[in-house]
């Protein structure tokens, strides 16, 4: 049976294959599973205790404390999303499996779709324990954001996805030599997302950069909700539009980078 005769089931089968590829990997390696949930919990706990300390020492600091813990949990959606996409791709380089994958009927769009789905599932698994612990240990519940939590999480996952695509594009172009840049990319953006402070505290150039990114608008809304001032829906719409723009840009860069790798032989001999 040809692919053209049955395209949708075949495509779903290929997406299932990619998901199984990573599920099997995590099942075969318990340290990987520990790593998945370790960092979100560690980050949340360190900021949680900092918040508890501030609450005891400084009056009227409730807003700052909740912003720290809630902001940390939300930032994890963005950071873990792009990092998981990086890990999913880099696993194929480490195992010298890219040639097998891209000689199969899978296309670049399906591949990226597959690792995006895998990453979303992994992020949700990673963050749920940290969310529950934040509520149990410090009394801060992410669900206190109410229904806007859903679009906020979706927008952060979108932002993580386009950054993940840009990272994969960079790895395709530069190979493992770009690995160290790839690992720190998400953290570089976190300062500009302003999760714990107002964008206005940043230097002017960084303010301009922050306003070009969806994260600053998302966290403006979060801070507004936590301050009891409502959701600032217009900020979420701006973030959505910016995410769409960056997703389009990342897709374009990724397809160019993939083609460049095919020209240079990068899919067969990717390394330093």
């Amino acid at each position, binding site marked *: *049976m*040809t*692919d*053209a005769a*049955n395209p949708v*089931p*075949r495509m779903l*089968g*290929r997406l*299932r*294959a*990619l998901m*199984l*590829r990573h599920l*099997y*990997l995590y099942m*075969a*390696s318990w340290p990987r599973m520990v790593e998945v949930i370790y960092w979100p919990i560690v980050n949340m706990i360190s900021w949680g205790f900092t918040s508890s300390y501030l609450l005891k020492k400084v009056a009227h600091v409730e807003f700052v404390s909740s912003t720290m813990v809630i902001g940390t949990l939300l930032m994890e959606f963005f950071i873990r999303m792009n990092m998981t996409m990086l890990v999913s791709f880099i*696993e194929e380089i480490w*195992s*010298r*499996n*890219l*040639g*097998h*994958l*891209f*000689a*199969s*009927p*899978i*296309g670049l769009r399906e591949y990226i779709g597959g690792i995006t789905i895998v990453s979303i599932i992994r992020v949700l698994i990673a963050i749920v324990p940290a969310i529950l612990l934040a509520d149990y240990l410090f009394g801060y519940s992410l669900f206190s954001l109410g229904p806007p939590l859903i679009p906020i999480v979706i927008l952060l996952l979108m932002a993580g996805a386009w950054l993940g695509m840009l990272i994969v594009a960079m790895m395709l172009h530069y190979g493992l030599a770009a690995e160290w840049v790839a690992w720190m990319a998400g953290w570089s953006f976190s300062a500009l997302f302003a999760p714990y402070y107002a964008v206005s505290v940043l230097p002017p150039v960084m303010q301009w950069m922050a306003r070009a990114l969806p994260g600053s608008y998302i966290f403006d809304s979060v801070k507004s909700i936590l301050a009891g001032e409502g959701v600032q829906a217009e900020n979420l719409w701006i973030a959505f539009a910016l995410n769409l723009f960056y997703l389009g840009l990342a897709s374009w860069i990724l397809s160019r980078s993939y*083609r460049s790798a*095919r*020209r*240079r*032989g990068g*899919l*067969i*001999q990717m390394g330093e």
Partner: protein
Amino acid sequence: MSDTITIPEIGTPHPFAIETRGLTKQFDEMLAVDHLDLSVTAGTITGLLGGNGAGKTTTMSMLLGLLEPTDGTITMLGEDMRHHRTRIAGQINFSSPYVDLPQRLTVRQNLVIYGLLYGVEDLKGKIAALADELQMTAMLDRRYGSLSAGQKTRAALAKSLINQPRLLLLDEPTASLDPDTADWVRTLLLQYRDRTGATIFMASHNMVEVERMCDDVVMMKQGRIVARGTPAALIATYGRDNLEEVFLDIARNRSLHD
């Protein structure tokens, strides 16, 4: 050897499984493949020979769609590779020492993943039949990374046969195998071709293997085809006793009457 896989008679309406016209690959200053016109007749086993740097792996990579040609066209199973890569990819498969399978996954898990990627139906039954055929049932649930070189070759071969390819591309299929296992692999490939009518296109440095298996031999040097024919015809043309001597003649630039 058991004969447990029931592979349908695929056949092909196209006289050539592979056709390239003016296929060229330039890496910066280096011309790796130079205007290659190659036709591989469907149902044959064709050997691709050449010294290191002759352009064999580059040619294979272009045929697999892993490397974009600088110029020229590739037609596989009657379809243009540039426009129908996905459709063609579902009907071909390959094995190469330059790529690997995920080490931490078991052989079975790898076969499930590649079976799904290639859209294989009745995957469970197919894996069981392949494991029986390749005498690897006992290692199906072992991690790929824990296997010996010979066992890895079997697993890679199982992956390359998972979709019953009409065209099988092999790069050094018996490299790093002991003579007994290598002979077993050759027999298996010959049986697969005889049973299915599939085309096998293989690069090899093992002249005995090529003499035994191949209907047709293509010799490459500096990105070009410099000799072509059946093993017997090439040996006769060069007045030598075996293909290895022919290979050395070509590699060392000896002319036919030296």
